[in-house]
């Protein structure tokens, strides 16, 4: 079995700098290693935007299961509607079930539950994945991007498919950028991590959501580091207490600086845009410790 190292960037709160950290670390890591960056924020994927990539390549449909009723076999027993957790199968009185594709999560429980084999396997495209080779900033690496079709709501099964794809495609390092949030879809993105880096900000909001995400990572039992982004904006005493409580191994500070904002707007990661900035220097520190302790 091939051994890949999975490093996952997460944070709970939106806008703390997850993609900012992921894209900058990607560039530093890709100098010496074979790297796949997986943007698993299906709802609002932005890694390609931050890398200044206009066009994504190698589009693929992400299909999940969708039930179709075999009307010849259906006895109107209603078991499929009963087993469905998401209300995607409706049983009108004395009529065969009706399926609402958007509500279906694709779990396939109805397919197995039907005693009469009256459910046929169909599919439903909920997202797309793209695999783009990035050759920029004097490095080269692969970017896997998952993009949800606007209007679809059940992210987890589609996310699980793209995650599996990322694990299959990665050769040496898999760097994962998760979405905002603390629900089960974040757990799917974090699953099998060798290291989780939670990005937070020095505000009570960042603190609150950091604690939620640390609960998950702690429960999953993965090694955890924290990056305090926009350091200097407010106190971090309580952040440090929470981090200790949840067994965070290390933390890094990325100072608040207009340099970061400028690079972000340009679509050029700061380590490439302004290598001498104090922000870039903080990224080199994180990279060096990764190199020494994880890789």
């Amino acid at each position, binding site marked *: 079995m091939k051994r890949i190292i999975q490093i996952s960037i997460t944070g709970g709160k939106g806008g703390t700098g997850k993609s900012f950290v992921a894209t900058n670390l990607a560039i530093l890591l890709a100098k010496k290693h074979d790297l796949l960056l997986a943007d698993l924020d299906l709802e609002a994927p932005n890694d390609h935007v931050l890398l200044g990539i206009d066009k994504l390549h190698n589009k693929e449909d992400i299909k999940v299961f969708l039930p179709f009723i075999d009307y010849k076999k259906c006895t109107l027993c209603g078991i499929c509607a009963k087993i469905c957790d998401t209300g995607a199968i409706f049983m009108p009185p004395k009529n065969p079930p009706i399926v609402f594709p958007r509500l279906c999560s694709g779990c396939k429980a109805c397919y197995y539950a039907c005693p009469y084999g009256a459910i046929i396997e*169909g599919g439903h495209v909920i997202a797309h994945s793209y695999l783009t080779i990035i050759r920029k900033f004097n490095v080269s690496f692969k970017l896997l991007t998952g993009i949800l079709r*606007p209007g679809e709501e059940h992210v987890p099964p589609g996310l699980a498919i793209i995650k599996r794809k990322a694990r299959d495609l990665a050769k040496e390092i898999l760097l994962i950028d998760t979405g905002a949030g603390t629900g089960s879809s974040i757990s799917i993105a974090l699953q099998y991590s060798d290291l989780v880096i939670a990005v937070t900000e020095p505000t009570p909001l960042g603190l609150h959501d950091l604690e939620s995400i640390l609960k998950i990572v702690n429960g999953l039992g993965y090694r955890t580091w924290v990056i305090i982004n926009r350091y200097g904006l*407010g106190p971090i005493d309580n952040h440090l207490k929470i981090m200790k409580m949840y067994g965070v191994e290390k933390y890094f500070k990325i100072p608040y600086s207009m340099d970061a904002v400028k690079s972000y707007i340009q679509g050029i990661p700061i380590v490439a845009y302004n290598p001498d900035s104090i922000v870039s220097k903080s990224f080199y520190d994180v990279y060096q410790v990764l190199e020494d302790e994880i890789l």
Partner: protein
Amino acid sequence: MSSSDLIEIVIASGKGGVGKSTIAASLAIILRNSGYRVVAVDADAEAPNLHLVLGINRWDRILEHREGRIGFVRDDKCIYCGYCYDSCAFGAIEEKSGRYVINPWICEGCFTCSFVCPVKAISFKYNVLAGYIKIAYSTPYKFPLVSSEIKPGRPNSGKLVTEAKNLGRTISSGKGVIIVDAAAGIGCQVIASLAGSHLALLVAEPTPASFSDLKRIHKLTKHFGIPSTLVVNKYDLNEKFVSEIIEYARKENIELLGLLPYDDSVPKSMTMGKPVIYAYPNSDITKGIMEIANRLLTIVRNWKSWRLEHIPEKIEPFIPVIIKPRSWVR
């Protein structure tokens, strides 16, 4: 009760961290101070922060939300066939030193594994705690706050959001304004926030990432046929880009409510646990928020006619992409 007695305003952005909760808190306060009945709903169940921006840390009621199941493999019965591992759509089943283990942070309890297991080795824990709905009836701002909060690692946060919103509607008795602070993204939580709402207030900052997400969230509001307004936050970070966003808004019939500057008062007021309009009443951002609130008040006062002018001309229905099995006949 006619629907025009109640206006539900959803603050959404696609991208996280652009200022939804700060804007939601301030607007709720100003609308209340202008004489409207207000209920605030925190619909970001996976990262609920509105109470922190409002400095609310006491709840009058905390309701447990229990739903769903978590499966576990019984080692005494398991024959290690791996059918469960192959069948789980969520990848929740892991192989750990020769055993199959269901990851409780991922499992939704859908029963699929228990159906494929030939020896009935999978059992379930039922009625799992999925999250809370917290209610503060009396707040210093004279409006109630309903907050949804998922238990970390649990699925279906959208269901919790729907419950919190329904509770907010009940508390409002069908009158006044409900301010819904939505989650980042465009998934189930945001769809639950938009469902049945009347007006979307979209927040963007002048960065390519936020603009990209603004277009995605606006696609959703169009699916729902909800008229949209826009606030550009931190506009002075990149003034050149602002015109591009405004141009997009104009083309899409999104009414621009105003621009807000980047202001250190915002993170400072968060640390104080005070809404920025009270913590820094003379700051630039407070002035900007007041102007935006005035425009919003004009819309709320003239709701019926404004709505007619701004409702999307045609609803762009969501069309799922379906792959029919070959053997299937209607």
